[in-house]
């Protein structure tokens, strides 16, 4: 019997799990995929928004502002790089100017640092910007983080503090006697007093089991394309167009790695699993971003992916219990700015639990996160030497595009990676320009050795995604 069961292991579920792990509670997180962060969070853009896009009267707007402030501390606690690169919203036509002006006024009114940047100053900030663009709004508090590393750090820290994880277990039923819940997940039954629903695009279906489904999730697909890191000076900020009433538009993102990512598209779809990239999507993105930075070329793309935003039918976050099932708390419809808001959502959910009667008693000892991912490539030569002296496996570079060492891959496995994608999202092995051409067999050998699984049984991301078919 658990005090709390969380359904869904994305950034929001893990942020809540870690927040609750501060208290004397027994908590379990249930995830249908074989590893956490394999759903919508896997395709996150990594932007910590300033809050300039959202109305502070909405839950999205309010939690975005709170979240932006919370990230400062959280990134330090979890030893995750957080770079406030700033965002610039640019006017691509005369029509955009009044919209930008209004956004700036609103931002200033609610205290978001922001300013108009024009002409020469704008082009000094972004030298590759189209000569046709002369006005922008700069919001310097926006930043970027590595979204998967963040999710994994939250997961590891929550586990360190006693949260149990049940992975590869899809919730297929939730029963209640009015006092507690019995969750059927895969072939297991989990009992819990409280259930928190962070099931992303499936949140409405999970809510339905508990009769707390007074909302719908409308999946909205976004395709993104990553450019070779060699072109790392193409942009310096996260560049947005002036938003339209329905979308933030297509962005040019300076990622935490220094490389540039372009996208996303925003297409309402029916199939919650449709993460296909499309020719039209790519064309739309390229045409759009070239109106802002004309020098971006198709041939510089090294990777593409698509993710699905869980958009609620209210278009706002849905966070709270429902009248029909007060101990079942939804944290649903968490689309953009969900990553930014995640730490604030975690606090809000903890508060909701408290209000509904759970005693939140702080643990005497909360274990600080002590397993930061030491990236060999980012270390100074002196530290590289030290790392290799400490552990020879730092001298064995398995992924040469991203310079990832065997020691990092082993650490990822010891922290829970079971699949090739799990290694990729934790260490970046295979994310570079050769797309795992050189490192795949190294990574498979290490996975096989550490987990005691034959190589022919290893998968890309669980299920039927076997890497090779059979032994020769």
């Amino acid at each position, binding site marked *: 019997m658990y005090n709390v069961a969380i359904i869904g292991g994305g950034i929001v579920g893990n942020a809540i799990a870690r927040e609750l792990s501060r208290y004397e509670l027994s908590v379990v997180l249930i995830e249908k995929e074989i590893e956490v962060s394999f759903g919508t969070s896997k395709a996150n853009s990594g932007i910590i928004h300033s809050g300039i896009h959202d109305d502070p009267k909405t839950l999205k707007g309010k939690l975005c502002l709170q979240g932006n402030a919370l990230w400062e501390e959280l990134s330090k606690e979890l030893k995750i790089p957080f770079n406030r690169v700033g965002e610039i919203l640019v006017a691509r036509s005369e029509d955009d100017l009044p919209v930008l002006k209004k956004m700036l006024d609103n931002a200033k009114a609610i205290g978001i640092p922001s300013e108009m940047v024009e002409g020469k100053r704008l082009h000094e900030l972004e030298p590759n910007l189209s000569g046709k663009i002369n006005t922008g709004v700069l919001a310097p508090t926006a930043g970027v983080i590595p979204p998967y590393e963040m999710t994994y750090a939250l997961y590891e820290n929550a586990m360190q503090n006693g949260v149990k994880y049940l992975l590869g277990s899809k919730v297929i039923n939730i029963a209640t006697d009015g006092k507690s819940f019995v969750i059927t997940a895969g072939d297991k039954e989990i009992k819990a007093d409280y259930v928190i629903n962070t099931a992303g695009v499936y949140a409405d279906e999970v809510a339905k089991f508990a009769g707390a489904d007074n909302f719908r999730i409308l999946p909205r697909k976004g395709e993104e394309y990553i450019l070779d890191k060699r072109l790392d000076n193409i942009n310096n900020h996260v560049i947005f167009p002036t938003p339209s009433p329905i979308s933030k538009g297509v962005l040019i993102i300076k990622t935490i790695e220094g490389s540039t990512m372009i996208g996303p598209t925003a297409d309402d779809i029916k199939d919650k699993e449709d993460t296909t990239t499309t020719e039209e999507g790519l064309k739309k993105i390229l045409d759009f971003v070239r109106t802002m930075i004309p020098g971006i070329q198709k041939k510089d793309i090294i990777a593409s992916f698509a993710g699905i935003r869980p958009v609620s039918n209210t278009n706002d976050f849905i966070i709270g219990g429902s009248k029909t099932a007060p101990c079942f708390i939804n944290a649903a419809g968490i689309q953009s700015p969900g990553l930014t808001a995640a730490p604030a959502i975690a606090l809000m959910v903890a508060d909701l639990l408290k209000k509904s009667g759970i005693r939140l008693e702080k643990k005497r000892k909360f274990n600080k996160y002590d397993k930061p991912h030491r990236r060999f490539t980012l270390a100074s030569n002196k530290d590289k030497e030290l790392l290799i002296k400490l552990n020879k496996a730092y001298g064995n570079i398995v992924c040469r595009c991203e310079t990832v060492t065997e020691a990092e891959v082993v650490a990822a496995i010891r922290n829970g990676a079971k699949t090739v994608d799990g290694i990729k999202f934790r260490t970046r092995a295979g994310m570079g*320009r050769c797309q795992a051409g050189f490192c795949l*067999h190294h990574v498979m050998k290490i996975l096989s050795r550490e987990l005691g699984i034959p190589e022919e049984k290893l998968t890309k991301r669980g299920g039927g995604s076997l890497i090779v078919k059979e*032994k*020769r």
Partner: protein
Amino acid sequence: MKKISTDIIIIGAGPGGMAAALKAGEAGVKKILLVDRLPEPGGILQQCIHNGFGLHKFKKDLTGPEYADTYIKKIKNSNIEVLLQTMAIEITKDNKVILANGSDGLIEVSSKAIVLAMGCRERTRQQVSIPGTRPSGIFTAGVAQRFVNIEGFMPGKEVVVVGSGDIGMIMARRMTLEGARVHAVTELLPYPGGLTRNIVQCLNDFNIPLHLNHNVIKIYGKDRVTGVKIAKINNKGEPTDETFEISCDTLLFSVGLIPENELSRMVPLEINPITGGPFIDDTYQTKRPGVFICGNAAFVNDLADYVSCEGEIAGEAAANYVNGSLNTVTKVSVVAGENIRFVAPNFITRTDHVTLYARVTQQMRDVTVSSSGGIINIKKQIIKPSEMIEMELDSEKLKKIKELKELVIDVRPNK
């Protein structure tokens, strides 16, 4: 950090790097350091267990490992120091090479000359932007080759090969021999991407259909590839509505090779956007004196044999550089003219003998390869982008070339 000094450091012990090391040794250089990431020398040759190596260089038909072995044996009997399982992670602004391995940690190498021989990598599905899902079962042909020939695994059983590069065609045959069914090889262009001998020996002999003017336009499958949609391509290179689907569990991409030049960029060397390698003269010296590059890191070659030849030139030139006898003062630019995509090397300095390699932009029949001053004049029945044109320049021709400002190479149809 451990610091060592040497006369020549060679980065990469594939066919280019090994040939360079041996030639530099023969030229009398005492201290030569050859480094490679892998546990044994030979580079990609070790996984190329098919034959066809050495025909040009040794007039022998060897497999990749046999070809590599002829060099490895000589290196073992030489004074060349070989450092394996060691990766060059950086070239500093003052051109010191930083190496990393598990036993030494980091090593800073000061060398009088550097020979870059990093080879190339394969273009991926992502770089050719094929839409669809991203399941497992998608490999570059070279990765599949490694799985089958070295690691001992079958990547899959029902195969479609995208692109008709040499490795793709060789893997179509290899997978067939291992019991897989290769349903198709698709090629976007109207002509194949690889050598004629591979079309005959790898596809025709095994009844594997080659679909020219066709491309995969969609990939299906959530966990593992389940199929592809293939479209006929029109003469503008765009997909048409004429499509068909093939069920498969594996896709192999053979859509081009890209020279590996991350280290070259640190030197720094300017990269020729056409070849993907740095600009070089006919001693394979880059624009930075004392830094040489050879093989597929310089430009993608058709044959390992050519790579070895270039390695020998680079190794000898590096030795001359170390001995102070390399003379590259007079330079004549070599320029790609009509119907030529690139010519390499980019500058002529030598007076004894030079081999130029050119790749054409399209397949043509009954043509003449010519140059400024009428110095080159070769008639060809057929030329293809997949087969480089070799042009030998002897001392007499080089003397004439020295009087030119630049040497423009053209390919024109015979009327």
